[in-house]
């Protein structure tokens, strides 16, 4: 879903998405400075590296369309929403500067899709769903999978709004959301696979698993 430079001709879209993304990044950096411990830094680095790698792998989906992981919900469940937003920003910056993947002039728009909607929005949806489910590993994975799917579909809807503001035909909205409803399944599957692997080996490294830990320590205490 990386928007190239030429797609967005509507200057207010660029200005608004750049401002929103800059604000989120500033808050993310503040959170990193206050909350992150130095020994967590390599874990953030390796999450970002994995998401960059996974985004290189375009898998065929349907109707001659391919898709790849975005990783917003994955990063947010592992690291929390604000550090995840930083991860998405760095991945997008490396892609835009080194790989001509996603335009540099629209990096704010792309971060609004993958960081603001994908990581931050997806994270709060994940928390909301997890809050009404039992405190089990399966429920946590289900909440992450559903949030991953919704975040991709929601991001495709917002991307369509940007395109419509730049005078693309209205039909683009239906195709975007329809295709991403399929691509979102890939997002959900990879997100659940990776999270379940990390939960199986190092559940202490999954920020979004705090309710699981609370449940298991309560069980031990009882």
């Amino acid at each position: 879903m990386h928007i190239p430079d030429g797609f967005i001709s509507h200057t207010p879209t660029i200005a608004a998405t750049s401002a929103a993304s800059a604000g989120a990044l500033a808050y993310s950096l503040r959170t990193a400075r206050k909350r992150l411990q130095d020994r967590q830094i390599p874990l953030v680095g390796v999450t970002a590296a994995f998401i960059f790698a996974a985004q290189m792998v375009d898998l065929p989906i349907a109707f001659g369309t391919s898709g790849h992981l975005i990783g917003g919900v994955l990063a947010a469940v592992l690291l929390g929403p604000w550090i995840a937003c930083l991860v998405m920003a760095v991945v997008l910056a490396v892609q835009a500067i080194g790989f001509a993947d996603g335009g540099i002039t629209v990096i704010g728009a792309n971060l609004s899709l993958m960081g603001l909607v994908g990581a931050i929005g997806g994270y709060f949806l994940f928390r909301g769903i997890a809050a009404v489910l039992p405190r089990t590993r399966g429920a946590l994975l289900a909440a992450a999978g559903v949030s991953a799917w919704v975040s991709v579909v929601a991001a495709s809807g917002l991307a369509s709004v940007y395109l419509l503001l730049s005078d693309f035909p209205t039909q683009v909205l239906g195709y975007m959301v329809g295709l991403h409803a399929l691509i979102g399944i890939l997002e959900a599957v990879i997100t659940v696979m990776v999270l379940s692997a990390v939960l199986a080996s190092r559940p202490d490294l999954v920020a979004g698993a705090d309710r699981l830990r609370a449940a298991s320590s309560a069980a031990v205490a009882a």
Partner: protein
Amino acid sequence: MKGVRGTVLIGLGVALLVAMGLPYLASGEPDGLESAVLIAACDGDEACLDELAGEPAVAGLDPDYASGWVGGLAGVAATFLVISGLLLAVRRRDGGQRSPG
């Protein structure tokens, strides 16, 4: 928190394997955004899609390298180093001191 060195090394290994090995198997078909624009705005004409996308403002690596193992290695290394460097710099801004608790 237990040590993280093993986890970080395994994670980096997986990232490198994925980035250097799998893109060769990746589909060259348009992604969801390109497909939607191709159908809705270009009537299936790929030249029209390229024209709408425009020349990237920053060209980056040669595409032959970018989509191969060199690009995968360079991208994974750059991503890891840039975010680690950024976070170290941000953490050092308060003097690298952490008040206990």
